[in-house]
């Protein structure tokens, strides 16, 4: 855990963290503005729709933080201090992804708390806002599993990650059903939709059936793939 804690602390710079929490909290203001005079049922629907649609700001915040986990070590020239230690590459990959998940969860909880405050102000039920937190946590786990290896492998990883979030998840997955099935945001949404009993928040699930079990299974596969890919990269690629 020493390595995971070190990597987590390193990316958690105060200024950056405040900016990214603000980015993760983007859905709160539009939700509050559109729901403050809505009825309870309508407000609940609005919450699900706005978190589903504007929650992409959270994905971008997670991207910025998680690609930095190993990329910053590499760019700063400090990677030898962790690479040249008697730590198996599997353990190093796992620690890096755990640090990325930790960073994503920090943003998820902070961003959700802001949205929760807005939701509480208009009297939304606890189960609905809990589903919102589950959505962010599940998405954060999936994004960390993908973006941590991406940061290590690809020099312009933020650009590549943004292309995935904006082009693939936000635009193409809307129209291509096959892509929707592998969209991390929609996988997380399928879990939260099942909990909130909202079959299609923001009309984003299209062909995906909400379900906690299926969503978790897909996330587990993403985690395993991310771990295998990062372990391979740490073994085979130059560390500097």
């Amino acid at each position: 855990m020493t390595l995971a804690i070190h990597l987590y602390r390193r990316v958690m710079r105060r200024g950056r963290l405040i900016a990214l929490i603000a980015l993760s909290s983007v859905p709160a203001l539009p939700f509050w503005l559109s729901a403050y005079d809505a009825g309870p049922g309508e407000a609940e629907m609005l919450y699900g729709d706005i978190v589903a649609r504007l929650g992409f700001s959270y994905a971008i915040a997670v991207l910025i933080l998680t690609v930095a986990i190993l990329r910053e070590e590499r760019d700063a020239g400090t990677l030898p201090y962790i690479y040249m230690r008697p730590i198996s590459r599997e353990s190093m990959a796992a620690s890096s992804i755990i640090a990325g998940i930790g960073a994503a969860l920090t943003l998820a909880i902070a961003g959700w708390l802001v949205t929760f405050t807005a939701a509480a102000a208009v009297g939304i039920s606890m189960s609905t806002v809990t589903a919102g937190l589950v959505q962010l946590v599940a998405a954060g786990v999936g994004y960390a599993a993908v973006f941590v290896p991406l940061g290590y492998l690809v020099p312009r990883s933020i650009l590549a990650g943004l292309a995935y979030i904006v082009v693939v998840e936000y635009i193409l997955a809307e129209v291509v059903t096959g892509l929707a099935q592998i969209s991390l945001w929609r996988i997380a949404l399928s879990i939260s939709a099942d909990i909130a009993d909202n079959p299609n928040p923001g009309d984003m699930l299209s062909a995906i059936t909400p379900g906690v079990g299926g969503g978790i299974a897909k996330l587990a596969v993403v985690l395993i793939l991310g771990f295998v890919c990062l372990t391979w990269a740490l073994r085979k690629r130059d560390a500097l």
Partner: protein
Amino acid sequence: MTDTIVVNELSKWFGAKVAVSELTIRFGPGVTGLLGPNGAGKTTLMRVVAGLQRPSQGSVSIMGQDPRVTPAIYEKVSLVPEDEAVYERLSARSFVELAARLAKADDPRGRAQGALEQVDLIGSADRLLGGFSKGMRQRAKVAAALVSDPDVLLLDEPLNGADPVQRAHLILLFRQLGADGRTVIVSSHVLAEVERMTERVVAMVDGRLAAVGSVADIRSAMTDRPRLVFIEASDNRRLGAALMSAEGVIGVHIESSRLRVEAADAGDLAKRLPAIAIENGIGLTRVEPADESLESVFRYLVEGGE
């Protein structure tokens, strides 16, 4: 002497640039100086030996293990990288303690304290590394390398930025580590620096092995090779003719406004040059020895070997 590090037919290239070319060499216990001008491939060799970069061709083993396959070898191997990079927001103590924890050392705090004492950094141990001078950062990096009590220590330009007192301290420390039976490789482009640490030297130029031997061999190469001297005089042509017949002068070339003289011994030429000029009624405007860098010595060694 047992070979701790075996480098066999090693090549490393980046695209079209060959950084290390077909290098075969062995290192054993004690201090070995890795000499060469900037761009000679020393840092690449260090990184490949350390397992940070994979060989494009050939192999490296440390104590019989490939560091890229067996990370457990890092219990016995440490590197002080050339880069100034450190964790700027950590104190020297936290940095060295982190190194100890990652190395799974017993009593990381005690080990860190000991390593900081070894590099004489205990007085500044709780200051942030971001506020450290280059020399202090180097010492913190050395402490982080020593904290795991390594048998093999790779030091890439470890004296860069250190002041004379710090240099003397680190040189003494490296010599002691070598005397303890550890394999210590110190890269440098300054012969005098390496000379104070060891007699054993490996010289590299353009990614190739230029010489392996003692510092005395390198010194001898510096003395034996022809030396270049540039001379400007009131009559370059006449002075050139006079020098052609002078003892110890190997060649004279008339360039646009000066003479390029190759002499067996530049010091001897400098002593006799005024007499030759006076004898011929020629005024000397400028006498400038050239080609004195270690780089030129290495190049001479490489060319001489071909």
